[in-house]
């Protein structure tokens, strides 16, 4: 993918729009969307990621891959080589217990009393 990204950069593609991961069964597929030229055409590239394998990060080529890759790591466990943010968080850290939220009926009761 990094070769593709480099060649995209060379032809003056505007930017990386998005990275999306889709899980079907045991297979993860990464979809990369790039914006091209003045008409901002969308070009799509996809790669299949076998379980446990690492994917090369695009940060060296497109800096905005940072958070997009971090999201794929946190939601789907896909690891990216060279992404410093990957493993930090877009979402809450592991191990922090989220306080229990009261159920809908309880919250209504509180309102009535108030």
């Amino acid at each position, binding site marked *: 993918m990094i070769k593709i990204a480099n060649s995209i950069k060379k032809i003056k593609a*505007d*930017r*990386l*729009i*998005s990275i*999306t991961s*889709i*899980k*079907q069964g045991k297979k993860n597929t990464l*979809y990369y*969307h790039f914006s091209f030229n*003045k*008409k*901002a*055409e*969308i070009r*799509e590239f996809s790669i299949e990621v076998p379980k446990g394998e690492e994917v090369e990060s695009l940060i060296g080529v*497109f*800096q*905005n891959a*940072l*958070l*997009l890759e971090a999201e794929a790591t*946190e*939601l*789907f*466990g896909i690891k990216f080589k060279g992404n410093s943010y990957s493993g*930090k*968080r*877009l*979402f*809450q*850290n*592991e*191990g*922090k217990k*989220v306080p229990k*939220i009261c*159920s*809908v009926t309880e919250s209504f009761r509180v309102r009535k009393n108030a």
Partner: protein
Amino acid sequence: MHEKIYPIGPQHPSLKEPLFLKLHVDGSYITKAEFNLGYAHRGVEKCAEGYFLDTALHAVQRTCGICSQCHSMAFLNAVEPMTEAKVPDKVYLQRLITAELERMHSHMLWGGVMAHEIGLETLFMYYWREREHILDVFDELTGNRVHHSPDLLGTAKRAFNKKNLDMVLEKLDLIEHEIKDLKEVMRSHGVITSRFKKHGKIPKKMAKELGLVGPVARSSGINYDVRQNAPYMAYRMKELKVKPVIRTGGDAWERTMARCDEIFESMRLVRKACEMIDPKEDVPKRKNLFAKGTLGRGRSEAPRGENFHFVAVENNRILRLKLRTPTLANVICYSKIMEGEDITDVPVILMSLDPCISCMERVAVIRNGKQEVWNSHELFEGRKHD
């Protein structure tokens, strides 16, 4: 001088939405800035999974309270070409009117919050007073002040009639003069100019490298607006060609002025669309439409920039929905532009970027009527067991 760490957020008076900024300061100057996200999970992507396209649209329209219509347009841009939907021009024009009113409302809301951040409470109230007129129009047109939700797959919930359109034009006439005055205050007020100019500067090169979008990119000289570069729906019509506001300075001041000018461009588009729309024409009735393709991509220009929706469909149900909101594209520049600034300018710089955190973060699960907020571990485990 020793470097100290100054935390801002996730709950802080200068932040309207939760975001954690860790500022390394030397005296009052910022040497390094880091940010952490993850305090406002919403769950729109997850909500939509497994549902039919028209049902998922309800969730998508509730992604953001301010740019509800723009999310809906991006989703419909992705999904409608997959179906056999024949959308009449009237529906497209109605969508444009709501979207442009949203842009005006968003920029006015932002103008008010910006004024509040620097202590100009009167300006804040003036901006929000004018914004109320737009909310009244939404109430009249769609039945809702926030989360307008006027769209259906291939059609709209109701047709705008003459009374509705007259009200839109009447309200625009009412607020135009006031908005001009408010822009003049923004342009000439000594406090605003001294605090905004030359702060939070984003050079064109940086904006291009980071892939920034919306008024943030346009005020750094990048000529990119989805409505102009890749026109969709009613924006394809010749009469409704958009003239994006491009500025070159790239600082907080330029972003402020860019948004002020965009309000007038939106006004022009709404007026033109109101002229073009046929008030007697009805909109088509709702149909059950089925997707023929499997993957759809759609974009729209929201008030904060480009919205991108990627939809994967399996057996006519959503397999995966990805929303790339403009704030997710712009948030990457936050840490870079803070460096070298004074800590007292942080609220101004942050607000000049107009972040919408709740729009950007979107993972929570509601199951059997109970809400669960998942941490990343639970989220990943939950995915594993699906």
